[in-house]
């Protein structure tokens, strides 16, 4: 499971799923909010192993396979891929069906375990490393300026060309 999560968010110079403790998050998830997904894991994990053997008959365990082999397995499991127009997530990330194939379930759980509020009791995003990776500063309270752009902003000025002014200009 950890190897799988590591393929979703690898540790490639900066912390990934492994360092964020995603596997602990998932352990806890499967007895709390994701209890319905236990079945998907039970049925799906042997499938991952099976797919590895189909692709690489000589390989032993998924966790011991090379990163290239692991990625090839994930690619073969990812039925969606990344090749169509995006859709706006309605009301946040609310997932749909509880009976998703393992790939989608693990993708959700890895992302959630990597980026969940580290101050929550979900046991994910250890040390806030997920937030650091995406550039979100730790903490729950910020004071402006938030960026160089608003730091340099001179302050609000009304538009010089109001609609009535524009109309006057048009007349001229």
């Amino acid at each position, binding site marked *: 499971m950890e190897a799988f999560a590591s393929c979703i968010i690898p540790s490639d110079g900066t912390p990934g799923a492994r360092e964020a403790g995603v596997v602990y998050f998932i352990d806890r998830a499967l007895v709390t909010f994701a209890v319905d997904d236990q079945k998907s894991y039970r049925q799906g994990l042997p499938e991952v192993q099976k797919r590895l053997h189909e692709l690489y008959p000589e390989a032993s365990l998924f966790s011991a396979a090379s990163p290239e082999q692991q990625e090839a397995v994930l690619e073969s499991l990812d039925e969606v891929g990344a090749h169509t127009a995006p859709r706006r997530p309605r009301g946040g990330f609310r997932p749909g069906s509880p009976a998703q194939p393992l790939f989608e379930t693990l993708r959700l759980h890895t992302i959630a375990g990597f980026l969940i*509020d580290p101050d929550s009791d979900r046991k994910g995003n250890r040390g806030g490393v997920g937030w650091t990776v995406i550039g979100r500063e730790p903490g729950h309270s910020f004071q402006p300026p938030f960026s160089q*752009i608003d730091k340099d902003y001179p302050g609000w000025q009304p538009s010089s060309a109001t609609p009535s002014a524009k109309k006057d200009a048009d007349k001229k």
Partner: protein
Amino acid sequence: MKTDQPKYKTTDVVDFVIVGSGAAGGVLAKELSTNGFSVVVLEQGPYLHESDFSHDEIKILHEDFLTNHPKLQPNTFRKTPQDKAKPKRALVYGRAVGGTSNHFTANFWRFHEIDFKERSKIGAVAGSTLVDWPISYADLEPYYTKVEWEVGVSGLAGASPFDPPRSKPYPMPPLPVKANGIIFERAARKLGWNPFPAPMAILSQPRAGRSACVNCGFCLAFGCEVGAKSSSLASMIPLAEKSGKCEIRPNSYVHKIEIDEKGRATGAVYFDEKKNVHLQKAKAVILSANGAETPRLLFLSASSKFPDGLANSSGYVGKNLMFNSSAVSVGVFEEQTNDYKGFAVSRILHDFYELDAQKVGFYGGGGLDARYDMTPIGFAFGRPGERNTSGLPPNSPRWGKDFKAALAHNFTRTFEIFGHGTSLPITNNGFDVDPDVKDAWGLPALRLTYKDHPDDLKLAHWLAARSMELLDAAGAKQKWTYPIDEQQFGVHLLGTCRMGDDPKTSVINADHQTHDVKNLFLCDGSSLVTSGRGQPTMTIMALAFRAADRIMALAKRGDLSA
């Protein structure tokens, strides 16, 4: 639980029972109780406090901690009345004391004069039941001002050349500007448009014992932990409780309005937390349960006297639903904007509030705002089985090192332009009860029927085109618009028991009194006659302040006693 609340017995005939404690219910509870009336507020959700709120995206978005739960309260959906509805989540609304005002974005635009009299100005629109309101902007203006001062709205009077007249400035300055607001402002001005500081129901300064916004970045969908967001929970409920005349009774799920043989409401029947049934007696009943649950409750209260649903002699209960049309475009910028900090919106524009149908070829109008309303998991995740529902650009990788790199680059460099606009009322669109599907209490589930008027979709495309122009002028490195689909899901639940002088084509009169039952009042999103340009909560609160005045005048005249 607060100790200064009275505890009424269900057999006590209180002056008012109010169903729902959200934007409208909270205001009505405060107004009526502080004017000496005894009030019981029945709220189906729990009583949560600031200390119960958190930034746990799983709890809030996945477990629906603050909102209606699809497993307990399933919905069904169909496009037209001829179709068989299928189970599908149709709406999200707040299910806790404070209602949806706990978790909204807090964009607080007043409606403009045109919103109240558009039918007279433009004539009939084919396929729509568009009518004028029985009240005007001038009638509501004092109450908009009341909302701004009593509930707490930040903004800058006179900043928009399109603003309707106002009797008083805002009580506090706008919230600080965000990078996305500055980029939006500069690009809009290049195009000759008139951006201005967004009016927001979030405190820019401490007020009435509440904190100013601390810019935590978890705003839309989340409850405010410091009381800076001007929800009913933060602003109105505490005053209602302090009056000593108002009891807030949470976990009370009303499923029937009791009617006597004379056709008058005598109280509300509800399940308590243990599913025991009670009848709270009252001299008058006010439904502020939202634009879906208010009509549902009227359908659930059908009787031999009211076979088509309570107060439904017009046949308009549940109909004319308007979701507001919308379109979202997204830009990625070179420089870091860090818009994940702070509230969602700091600049908007209203140049397109009233489009010329002759010129653009469709009815409608709207506004644009620059916003960032995504939280970390929401930004990174896409819905299972659907592609790229995240905040990343089209064709982005969904896993692996390129996915991670895209998150690392884009999370702090992305924002959205949100186009909000009109929806036309259509009698086929609405909420009623499903003939088969039941909720966890055995009650018929909400059924949504909705198919956008073609003009609403044309407007959404038109607004998206303006947003893309703006992103272009702003120098976005990448930009795209999310697909504009027919809507099958809503959060703005408007028009389903609309106000009007004609009992044949409306459910309530201008006093929010149902045409059919003298001591039954409806006040929430369902009361709206037109959709406005996408930000209904300000108007719902203003209507509630006005409704309180009207209802108290009737009560003082003795018009509500049996």
